[in-house]
């Protein structure tokens, strides 16, 4: 029973047969205990070692080559992945910037134009700067074709920054037809204009005057308290508010549109 097992092991190894048989014969004869095991051990050791030593070299060399190539390949892949991710990220940021900027504008209240502290709630909390008195002069103009008599009711008024002030203009329509006027205003010096805040006035909206009618037009305004802290405004003592009235013309009559019935 022992011999066939050993021989079977043997038959697997073709190169070692002669050597092993000699060894096996030597081995088999002397010892009595564990012959089978001893022989098996011995053969296995010798066969195993040889096989391993033979195959390890081949595999190692090809393994090294392929592993290096694989390493390069994987490195390339990771680099390419990072670059692709960065590209996709940039595209995503550029798309996301539109709503993000909108949110930022809503939060900071800039709305595209940087306004120097023009806040509607400021009126309730501002304190007048009593030591800085500014003279506001008023000017009224009309366009050449505008027939209204338009003039201010006070030539000047002395205000301090942070205090709300009221001023009046008067307009009279001497014609026999109702005239619609629209006005715009101007503040000189230009730099001081950013501190000139109007709470309510009569500009930018159509104002209709019936024939021979005369009305008082108020302007309710204040000068921003930060006016006192601006170094560029240190020498500004006079601000001129100038209104100009234009005649609002009727809308242009359109030529009859094709396919649209007028009734």
């Amino acid at each position, binding site marked *: 029973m022992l011999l066939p097992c050993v021989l079977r092991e043997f038959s697997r190894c073709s190169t070692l047969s002669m050597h092993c048989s000699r060894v096996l014969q030597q081995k088999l004869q002397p010892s009595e205990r564990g012959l089978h095991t001893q022989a098996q051990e011995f053969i296995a050791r010798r066969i195993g070692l040889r096989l391993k030593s033979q195959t390890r070299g081949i595999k190692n060399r090809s393994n090294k080559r392929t592993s290096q190539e694989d390493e390069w390949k994987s490195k390339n892949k990771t680099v390419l992945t990072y670059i692709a991710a960065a590209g996709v990220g940039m595209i995503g940021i550029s798309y996301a910037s539109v709503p993000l900027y909108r949110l930022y504008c809503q939060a900071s209240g800039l709305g595209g134009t940087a306004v120097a502290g*023009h806040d*509607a709630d400021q*009126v*309730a909390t*501002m304190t*007048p700067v009593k030591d800085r008195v500014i003279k506001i002069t008023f000017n009224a103009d009309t366009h050449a074709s505008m027939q209204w008599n338009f003039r201010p*009711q*006070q*030539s*000047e*008024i*002395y*205000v*301090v920054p942070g*205090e*709300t*002030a*009221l001023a*009046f203009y008067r307009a009279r329509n001497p014609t026999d037809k109702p005239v619609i006027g629209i006005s*715009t*205003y*101007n*503040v*000189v010096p*230009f*730099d001081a*204009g950013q501190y000139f*805040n*109007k*709470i*309510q*006035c*009569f*500009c*930018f*909206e159509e*104002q*209709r*005057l*019936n024939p021979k*009618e005369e*009305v*008082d*037009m*108020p302007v*309710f305004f*204040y000068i921003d308290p930060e006016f006192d802290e601006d170094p560029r405004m240190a020498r500004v003592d006079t601000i001129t508010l*100038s209104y100009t009235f234009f005649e609002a013309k009727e809308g242009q009559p359109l030529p009859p549109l094709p396919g649209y019935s007028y009734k």
Partner: protein
Amino acid sequence: MSTAMNFSSKAFKPRAPDKGSFPLDHFGECKGFKETFMKCLRDNSFDNSMCRLQSKDYLQCRMDNQLMAKEPLEKLGFADLKETSPSPEDKDAKE
């Protein structure tokens, strides 16, 4: 003036008023208050800080006659005048 093509200086940008436009007082409902205010200005050599009570009265008249949107007086900058002349409307505005 504002359209002068100045190269370096800033151009003037007209801004819309905060609370919009005053409706015209066609019937002269608040003319009396306006006359009081103008008289006060002339007497005080056009010093606005002396005539704030009259301007407050004028605006109050406008609010009462539907010529102006009703606003609490603090929003119009008359917070210091409220202590001197309290009225039931002011008390409502405070609440």
